[in-house]
């Protein structure tokens, strides 16, 4: 997309440069080949564990469900590894990635051999040679806890209809188990809340089912030389967002061969409004303060009282302490470390401590790539709610600008890394 120079006077916002770039159809991230290489490489490295995350999230939501002792919830059965992704392969509803619909071969290879060697999955798990699924659960819980982010999905979890559906599934799940059934009678809210959490497992699983093939395809296009600039990458994401926007979000549970539709597809919850936007808000912007950087002491007032003011997402995170105790993104960084494309390993070897501090270097690149994703979301929102960038009407352009400025206001806090990523020296 090419856009002529803006017809408005320059913005006076502290992030004016970024705003002008957004108005010209660019991303928050400067368009350099180095940035492009980093973000695409990280999409690739992120997509492989993500392929595991979404499968396992759905497995937990649909099969493990309320298991009181879910010891083996990270052990995916073959059925879920072979589960065809709806957006990849020949059977796809809408083919985004041209690769296979079942689990990614790199993921399967890692699950088999890990970093150590071939041994039974249980030993891989106990030796911690595995995908850090806890990170996906943390994202899910963050979406569950940050309520009131818009959308109808979250209010629906409190409706009588949902409660009735959930109740039916809970009773079916514990049939023949009088202890659990009486617990359910005594404390009807207990399993219900667990069930809501399961619904968010499903929500996030369905969200990532889309993102994994998108990232795989971007990486393939880059490798083929068909993706050459940061705005192009962002535009691919925007197009992907619109193509998928209407995909249903639901929660089905399979109990003894029977399917319980706790949130039926017919409710009309859609991917963009019920999964993507809440996810970006909850995980990119808010999440929860890292135990290793903030004090939860109520008197210290380090943590805002209002959830709206939480600013601990990846766009604000300090990546330098990754690898330290109390820094949750470490889990994801370690996952991505297994799947870095060779060109990034070579690139990191040239800077800082080379392969020794790759965990942090890739964390910084990941932060850049997530700024690109957030740019895509901001552009998509603008496209959905406001006016095209080449609108001839200056009043419309002014509306766009006000929107962009409002978005950039969120990065005015000192923790925001928007300034840092403008500079290649931040690595």
């Amino acid at each position, binding site marked *: 997309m090419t856009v002529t120079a803006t017809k408005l006077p320059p913005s006076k916002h502290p992030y004016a440069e970024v705003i002008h770039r957004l108005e010209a159809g660019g991303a928050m991230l400067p368009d350099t080949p180095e940035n492009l290489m980093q973000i695409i490489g990280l999409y690739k490295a992120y997509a492989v564990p993500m392929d595991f995350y979404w499968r396992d999230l759905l497995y937990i939501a649909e099969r493990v469900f309320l298991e009181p002792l879910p010891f083996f919830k990270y052990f995916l059965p073959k059925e879920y590894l072979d589960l065809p992704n709806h957006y990849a392969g020949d059977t796809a509803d809408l083919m985004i990635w041209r690769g296979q619909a079942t689990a990614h071969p790199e993921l399967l290879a890692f699950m088999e051999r890990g970093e150590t060697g071939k041994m039974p999955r249980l030993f891989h798990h106990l030796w911690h040679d595995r995908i850090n699924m806890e990170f996906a659960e943390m994202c899910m819980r963050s979406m569950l806890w940050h309520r009131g982010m818009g959308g109808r999905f979250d209010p629906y979890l409190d409706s009588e209809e949902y409660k009735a559906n959930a109740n039916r599934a809970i009773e079916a799940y514990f049939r023949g188990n009088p202890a659990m059934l009486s617990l359910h009678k005594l404390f009807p809210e207990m399993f219900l809340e667990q069930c809501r959490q399961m619904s968010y497992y499903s929500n996030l699983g369905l969200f990532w089912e889309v993102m994994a093939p998108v990232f795989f395809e971007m990486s393939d296009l880059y490798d083929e030389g068909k993706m050459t600039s940061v705005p192009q990458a962002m535009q691919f994401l925007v197009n992907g967002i619109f193509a998928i926007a209407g995909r249903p979000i639901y929660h089905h549970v399979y109990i003894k061969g029977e399917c319980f539709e706790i949130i039926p597809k017919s409710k009309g919850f859609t991917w963009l409004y019920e999964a993507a936007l809440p996810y970006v808000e909850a995980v990119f912007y808010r999440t929860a303060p890292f135990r290793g950087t903030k004090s939860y002491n109520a008197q210290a007032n380090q943590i805002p009282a209002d959830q709206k003011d939480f600013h601990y997402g990846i766009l604000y995170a300090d990546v*330098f*302490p990754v690898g*330290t105790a109390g820094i949750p993104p470490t889990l994801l960084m370690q996952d991505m470390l297994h799947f870095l494309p060779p060109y990034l390993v070579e690139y990191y070897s040239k800077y*800082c*401590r080379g392969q020794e*501090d790759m965990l942090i270097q890739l964390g910084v690149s990941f932060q850049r790539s997530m700024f690109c994703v957030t740019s895509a979301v901001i552009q998509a929102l603008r496209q959905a709610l406001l006016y095209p960038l080449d609108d001839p009407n200056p009043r419309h352009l002014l509306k766009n600008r006000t929107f962009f400025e409002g978005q950039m206001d969120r990065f005015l806090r000192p923790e925001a890394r928007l300034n840092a990523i403008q500079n290649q020296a931040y690595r």
Partner: protein
Amino acid sequence: MLSVLVWLPIIGAVIIGLRPQKNQARSIALSVSFGLVVWSFWLLFQFSSSLSTMQFIEALQWVPQLGLNYRLGIDGLSLPLVVLSSVLTWVAIYSSKREIERPRLYYALILLVNAGLAGGFLVQNLLLFALFYELELVPIYLLIAIWGGTERRGYAAIKFLTYTAVSGFLILSAFLGIGFLAGSEAFSYNPQLIAALPIATQVVLLSLILFGFGIKIPLFPLHTWLPDAYAEASPPVAILLGGVLAKLGTYGLVRFGLNLFPEAWHLLAPGLAVLGAVSAIYGSLVALAQKDIKLMVAYSSIGHMGYILLAIAAATPLSLLGAVLQMVSHGLILAMLFYLVGLIEAKVGTRDLDGLNGLMNPVRGLPLISALLILAGMASAGIPGLVGFIAEFLVLQGSFVPYPIPTLLCVVCSGLTAVYFVILISRTCFGKLDNATAYYPSVLWSERIPALLLAGLILLFGLQPSWLTHWSETTTTALASQIKIAAAANFPGDLP
């Protein structure tokens, strides 16, 4: 056998000086000092720890008219210090920068320092001791003045030179006084001759010796050369300076103060005990106020030297043993602290407490170095399980009966040491890295080795102190009984 320790480094220095190839200097110096370490360990196992007299005596007539004999010997007092000096010289040479300027001069000087140290600990002749004592002077001056830190290195080196020269002069004049008054026979370390001198003369001579070694140790208020010299010296030189050279002072105090003048010592001891306690408290309080981590470590040294003075003043068997242990433990701990501080400065580029932060970060910081710094700080503060505790506890236990108040003041000083080391550690190792500056180079394994070695020794002797104490026990007990007999003979009223 002992001559090897003195002459091998001198020969090594000459070889380094004569070889035209600059790049071989380091490897020659390393192998010579490693040879010395092996040799001193071998001595350690040849040494019979049940004898209180000198062993491995070597004697040669040199200038009989002056009473100048080449006479070497070793006992439980000098043995641990000789081994310490060999080990720390190896550490200092190993930790010198590979691409150092004028390597031949540098390594030759370090080996000369080592020769002087070994000589100082081994000779049994007063004039020869003074000779070796002065021999330290010039190499250290050059090491600070040429390879020191900032522009202030010239000033620091001159200050060191002046103070130490005065110290040497005081000691030499005391020795010459001994020679004049007791006959030149007395030069060859003969306590009986000196004991015959009138007590007032003894007090004067002892005071000269006290001032002379007090500068070297250093004690408050003779310490003002120390912060400059320690801070300006490069880490290897600081290791030698603080780790072993200061021990030459405390060793001299025992050998030439306590042992030669037991009666005069008994008279002056209460004042020395107070001075030791004051020195300890003063050093800790000044360390508390520093913003530069190297200066903190330097002042901590004054504090720890105060303990040694207290212990020597008390002169009980336990306290003297504690003094020897404290010399060794302080040598190991200070060397480790200086090494780590030097490494941090090399990697981070600052020693400022306000500029350092978050070095415990496992990926981008210096995690192992920080961990070792915490260990060394704990050892210095006297945390049980590490060698510092063993030494301090023996000192305090041994000194409490004769001097309860100074001992309690030293306990307070021990608490203050913990205070400033916690400040140092929390500002340096804890906190978070500054994202704008934290692109430090990583620490190589070869750079970790000296610190790990010292940490191993500190831990080993902290857990198994008898491996350290049993070399010196007989000697220190004999020393203590000697002063007790002298005191009983001359001041019968003082004894309970």
